[in-house]
């Protein structure tokens, strides 16, 4: 087996990228083919029916259903605010009156004499789709949405949370493996995409959220920190719909791990530029990785080598990273490729390779536990 695992993540200085911007239900497209759009431009819009909240007024006021219309303070068609009284009981001799408050804002849709039920329809929910990627509208799908196209620097992360956002790129750390701590995040980073190097802490993410940053990108993240910011233990790796206030993208993995040097350098070269970030991740069938898209205006400001996936051949001297404990995150080169399987510490037998680490040590790890890194 001469091939090593490659996570299949794209890191490309310049590539053509299409963003499909589609409404969940039929609606109206706001732009035309050929239009130039910004990240925040609304390209399509529609309205969804509001939620209907039923409220049994007869039960709440201990009245007969037939009496309910007479007890209503609001009539059909009136708009109501949450916690606004909408009905009042007659009480005893004008005393001990009971009130019934609206459980939600909206319009009083129906008052039933037979059940005493009152329906409050919430306001119509506007559904808007933004362009997300600044660029040109390549095609319009009538009633559904548009396709936006542009030449971009594309960086895929390995894991992310939070949805689409955009902002200018700000580099917070001084090296590709410096930990991204809260004190590195300043007020000026409001609306920005903060790029860190090594592990980002929960406090850093919290700070980013407080200063109003759009996104925070770094090499690693602790799972306990992820749990802390999400408020729950993430099970299935299908993300993108979280409402965190900030989009989080991890480029390498969980734990203490620095961002790949090339990725870091690419991002550093793009500092100050506008970028679009999406944290949506889906591992498994129909893989979706978080992405950072930086439009390239003329394509001339970088070497422009479109990166293709690594061929994945392990040879002596190939730079690799170990992706499993006990040497997780360590970088080195292939020092030996023994043919025969060896017995591991766990007792299993597996094909292994020797890795010469940057520190000078040589360790033996299973071939499955390394990944190629780009030079």
């Amino acid at each position, binding site marked *: 087996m001469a091939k090593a695992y490659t996570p299949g993540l794209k890191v490309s200085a310049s590539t053509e990228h299409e963003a499909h911007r589609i409404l969940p239900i039929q609606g109206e497209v706001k732009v035309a083919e050929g239009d130039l759009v910004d990240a925040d431009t609304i390209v399509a819009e529609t309205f969804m029916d509001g939620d209907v909240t039923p409220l049994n007024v007869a039960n709440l006021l201990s009245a007969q259903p037939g009496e309910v219309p007479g007890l209503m303070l609001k009539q059909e068609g009136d708009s109501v605010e949450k916690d606004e009284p909408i009905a009042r009981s007659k009480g005893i001799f004008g005393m001990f009156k009971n009130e019934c408050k609206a459980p939600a804002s909206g319009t009083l849709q129906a008052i039933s004499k037979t059940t005493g039920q009152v329906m409050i329809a919430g306001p119509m929910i506007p559904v808007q789709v933004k362009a997300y990627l600044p660029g040109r509208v390549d095609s319009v799908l009538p009633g559904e949405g548009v396709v936006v196209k542009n030449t971009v620097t594309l960086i895929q992360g390995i894991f992310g949370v939070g949805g689409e956002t955009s902002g200018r790129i700000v580099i917070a750390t001084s090296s590709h493996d410096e930990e991204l701590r809260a004190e590195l995040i300043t007020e000026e980073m409001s609306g920005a995409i903060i790029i860190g190097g090594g592990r980002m802490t929960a406090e850093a993410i919290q700070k980013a959220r407080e200063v109003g940053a759009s996104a925070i990108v770094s090499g690693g993240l602790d799972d306990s920190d992820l749990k802390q910011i999400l408020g729950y233990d993430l099970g*299935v790796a299908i993300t993108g719909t979280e409402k965190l206030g900030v989009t989080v993208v991890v480029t390498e993995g969980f734990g203490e791990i620095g961002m790949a040097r090339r990725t870091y350098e690419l991002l550093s070269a793009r500092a100050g530029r506008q970028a679009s970030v999406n944290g949506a991740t889906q591992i498994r069938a129909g893989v979706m990785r978080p992405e950072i898209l930086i439009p390239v205006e003329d394509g001339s400001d970088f070497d422009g080598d479109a990166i293709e996936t690594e061929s994945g051949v392990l040879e002596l001297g190939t730079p690799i990273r170990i992706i499993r404990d006990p040497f997780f995150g360590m970088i080195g080169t292939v020092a030996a490729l023994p043919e025969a399987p060896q017995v591991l510490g766990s007792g299993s037998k597996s094909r292994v390779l020797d890795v010469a680490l940057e520190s000078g040590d040589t360790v033996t790890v299973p071939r499955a536990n390394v990944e190629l890194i780009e030079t």
Partner: protein
Amino acid sequence: MSSESTFNPADVKVILATDCGSTTTKAIMIEQVDGVYRQTWRGEAPTTVEEPFADVTVGVINSLTEIQEVSGRRLLDDQGRIIRPATADEGCDIYISTSSAGGGLQMMVAGVVREMTAASAKRAALGAGAIVMDTIASNDKRRPHEQIQRIRELRPDMVLISGGTDGGDTKKVTEIAELIAPAKPRPRFGKAYELPIIFAGNEKAQPEMNRVFGDGGFDLKITDNLRPSLEQENLGPARDMIHDVFLEHVMAHAPGYDKLMSITDAPIMPTPGAVGDILQTIAKGRGINAVGVDIGGATTDVFSVFDGTFNRTVSANLGMSYSISNVCAEATLPTILRWVHIDMDERELRNRVKNKMIRPTTIPQTLEALVFEQAVAREALRLAYKQHKEFATTLKGVQQQRTVGDTFSQQSGGETIVDNMKLDLLVASGGVLSHAPRMHQTAMLLIDAFEPEGVTELAKDSIFMMPHLGVLASVHEQAAMEVFERDCLVYLGTCVAAKGAGKPGKSCFSWSLDGGSRGSGELQFGDLEHVELGPDESAEIEIRPARGFDVGAGPGKVLKRTVRGGTVGLILDARGRPLALPEERQACRSAMQKVIDQIGLYPAAESTPVTQESGSSD
């Protein structure tokens, strides 16, 4: 499917079989050795359905290349084609394959009542080896618009609709069809793909189906009702139809599958369907109740045959790589750590779990990592088996026959048919189980997760060969059966467990083997004992349970049985059923340590560790 059955079975000397899983493609070679078929070599390579390769055959060729390397037999020509037919030192005679790559066969099923026809439809789909993405029913508590929304979101490979007994309801099932038709679910494989709809419902509703799905964009297939009456379930025709459609439509559109289909000598089967077939064959042939489990990276499949009824469930989010994080979230870390006897750093573990999720192909290198991974596996299996028990039930909606004696004990329909006491054989497969460095670990994983009661044989599918053999059986049954007997199942041994609860230190049961000549003893509650009994040996066991304990003959009754040995031997389990571990961490750790000592689970310093190859042919 190029040249089906154009060979003479007697001439077949070399067979190649691959199983394209979601992460790895596994290849085996079967050769005729001294007149019998034996599995001889195997190879593995990452599956290549997704980008950048987007061609499943790349992984197939890689795995075959590995066999070529290790066996020294040339299988592929310079163009990377399989050399056929076999000569003395080149090529093979038959090449077959199963597939669950790219998410396998993904289906949506629909029925009128969720617990009745929709459940039957789900059973049919699962039995055929599909992953059921969602079940639409008129009583699934969703409003029609929500159902339409859901149908739109899903991108199934095919849809199975059932509903109404023959001569029964037509209205509701038509309503369901009328929801699906306008929602126009988009199949995964582009717009040119006509979504296959299989209707296996009320025969009176067939004209309605033709009307609803006749407009184009759908490929409607009609087959026999899978619930002709509520008292009867007829899944066969629907399963066959699913398989036909799978080959005809789904396989033809998956990346590289057209190529794969052209080089196989038998129709490609969905992996779980093939496993189900072979398990049913064993259960029928030996007249036993069997449970099979395949724990994969993303999903865990549980198969069971109880009293001739076959059931399969897929626990979509319980697995050891992609879904490992979900296992930890569902089971919670403290529950997983019940099975761990050493101290572990929680932060470290959490990161490891997540890294395994995002980089699913790594394997544990240290003993500590292995212990933890096996603890996670126990919980994944336990949760999957629980889901299976809930699904494998008697039919619902059936009229009951009562006598006055039932006054105070009215059993309702839809009770689980899974009974651990009646279970005879438990077969394990899937990486974490079959690649465990020591067989004892596999055996204990099964015992802890499934909690078998009474006398249960434990076996493992040595290298997950059951899917290959399931397909092989359809073209060369003799070869399939011979390999199955000799190489596929590795008998680990037999577990004897007493059902009941007691206090630690009180007697649970006493036992004697072959009248005491091969050992005897008494176990106290909470104890575990390991007795060597070789793979080809068997012995007469007599078990005398203490009062309140049951080993299969009834509470407190003596049981005499022949037990089969294996690579592990006999495990006598007096920890009681249901299995309860101490709540307190320290007590739990020492209880686990005791188990490890008694069985010899993780020998820290053993000179010749048993490896995964030990159970196979060599």
